[in-house]
């Protein structure tokens, strides 16, 4: 059997796999659109295989790789099961993605990317994969959101996906140009630690570098000259910073708390120099400073349980900040300009940008969650009349984080707070639909 004949047989196998799986309903909204997309990919691969000269090995190789990628994709989508992730959170995340993660197609200049969700792995599974822009056998690009299976209901930690939304936004051609102009230019400002790869390496190997960092780098043979040649990818580092900026302006305080908790649980010193991400200590210090620059840590003026609880929350965040100037890598003015640049773009695509909460609403929600009631925009007034209000799900998450850090709290565990917030997001969606006249 020739390679071409073998691959044509594999096309039949993939077609059968597709019919056995994605033709049927998977997930909340069914899987027909994925079936249609995969069928189009299989169709072009099959017709190209039929046409290819068996002696044209480079072309046969490309088609072979295309078939392998398609099979992997179908199997990933098939694994996607609604029972394995927090679908109320996913619905909110999808609303953000649909508003801004778009691509220009022949039929629609702002077509939302098709999103599917799956759960796998452990703590570090959080990810949003966007298919690559470069030529491929894809008709439309797909977005895959991945949650850790062990954290199904931990919606407070899911806020970290704000960073991942950043990658997906940066993967949208027209936003990429805007972000480079309005955000990246400030992150890589002249004279800063991220001006060039050489500047970043010089900062790392400066006289003030913590001895443990230097010892780790030296033991691996890394030097100022070869760090971004052999060990780390500088362009990935700045993209990660850019995505932290987007995470902050899209998810607000809940994003800061999620990054502090998760990043430091994986790199306990915060000083590991990895291949694709800047040091955790740099990122957390930046986020805390960004929250201050944006006024996200403002407290109510009156003395109240909310003020006290919010203060406690930000005190907790401050425990993750390293008081070492070596860990502060950007100039305040430039960093604020970068934050404003990201906020400007996201504000054009509602509900992508984090909206400032009202302290009055926050106070009511904090009181509710403290009584183990899901914090939503619903109350019964003194006359016994019910009142509904719109509440952004990111404010529910912020209230959840505040409650989880409350010093003299009700004894609720982090797990219970998460479940209350997950229920709140679901209930709030119903309230919002009712307010919009949808019920």
């Amino acid at each position, binding site marked *: 059997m020739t390679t071409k004949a073998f691959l044509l047989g594999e096309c039949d196998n993939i077609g059968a796999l597709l019919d056995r799986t994605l033709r049927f309903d998977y997930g909340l909204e069914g899987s027909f659109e994925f079936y249609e997309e995969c069928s189009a990919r299989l169709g072009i691969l099959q*017709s190209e295989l039929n046409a290819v000269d068996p002696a044209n090995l480079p072309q046969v190789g490309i088609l072979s790789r295309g078939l392998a990628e398609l099979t992997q994709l179908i199997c990933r989508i098939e694994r996607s099961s609604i029972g394995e992730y927090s679908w109320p959170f996913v619905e909110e995340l999808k609303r953000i993605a649909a508003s801004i993660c778009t691509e220009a197609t022949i039929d629609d200049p702002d077509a939302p990317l098709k999103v599917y969700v799956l759960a796998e792995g452990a703590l570090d599974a959080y990810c949003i994969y966007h298919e690559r822009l*470069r*030529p491929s056998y*894809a*008709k439309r690009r797909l977005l895959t959101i*991945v949650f850790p299976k062990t954290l199904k209901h931990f919606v407070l930690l899911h806020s970290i996906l704000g960073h991942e939304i950043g990658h997906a936004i940066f993967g949208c*051609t027209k936003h990429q140009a805007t972000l480079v102009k309005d955000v990246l230019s400030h992150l890589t400002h002249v004279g800063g630690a991220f001006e060039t790869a050489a500047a970043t390496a010089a900062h790392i190997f400066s006289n003030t570098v913590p001895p443990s960092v230097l010892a780790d780098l030296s033991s691996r043979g890394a030097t100022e000259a070869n760090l971004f040649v052999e060990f780390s990818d500088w362009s990935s580092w700045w993209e990660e910073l850019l995505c932290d900026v987007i995470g902050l302006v899209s998810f607000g305080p809940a994003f800061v708390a999620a990054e502090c908790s998760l*990043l430091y649980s994986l790199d306990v010193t915060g000083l590991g120099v990895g291949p694709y991400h800047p040091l*955790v200590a740099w990122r957390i210090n930046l986020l805390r400073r960004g929250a201050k620059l944006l006024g996200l840590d403002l407290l109510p003026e009156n003395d109240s349980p909310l003020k006290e609880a919010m203060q406690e929350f930000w005190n907790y965040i401050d425990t993750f900040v390293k008081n070492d100037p070596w860990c502060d890598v950007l100039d305040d003015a430039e960093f604020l300009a970068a934050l404003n640049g990201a906020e400007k773009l996201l504000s054009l695509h509602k509900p992508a940008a984090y909206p400032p909460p009202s302290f009055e609403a926050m106070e009511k929600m904090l009181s509710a969650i403290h009584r183990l009631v899901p914090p939503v925009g619903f109350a019964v007034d003194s006359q016994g009349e019910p009142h509904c209000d719109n509440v952004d799900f990111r404010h529910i998450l912020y209230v959840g984080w505040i409650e989880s850090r409350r010093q003299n709290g009700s004894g609720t565990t982090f797990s219970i707070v998460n479940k209350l917030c997950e229920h709140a997001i679901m209930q709030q969606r119903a309230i919002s639909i009712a307010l919009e006249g949808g019920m």
Partner: protein
Amino acid sequence: MSIISQNYVDDSNLIAKRFASIVATYFEGATEVRDGSARVPLENLYRILEMYRFDAYRDEDRKGVLALHVSESRYDRSRNNENWQAGIAAALSQSLEAFYRNVPKETAIAELQESLRSVARGQPLPPDQSRKAHGFFERFGQLV
């Protein structure tokens, strides 16, 4: 351990080349254009033109937000080859110069995208626009 390991190969240029030659035939009235999978080359070229329009080619293949300690292997560095688009962008520029000389880049890209849209929808194009689009994609397929 899987049964084989291979270095990553970036197929961008060859796929773009093939798609351009396929799309060029659509402007000659190929019937396959109404088939669902015919949209794949059309959408790819539309996407390539969009990247060229915004000069936005950043296309990292990446790990998740927390994948701090992924392999530091140098073998897979080529996956993130930052210059994957160099040949494609150069071929687009030369093809534009050949068929849309003195036309502003933005206008030329808009016209080419409109041509792809018309072909996808089976709508007739003015002969001159069709001829230029056909020539452009044919030349691009030769150059890339």
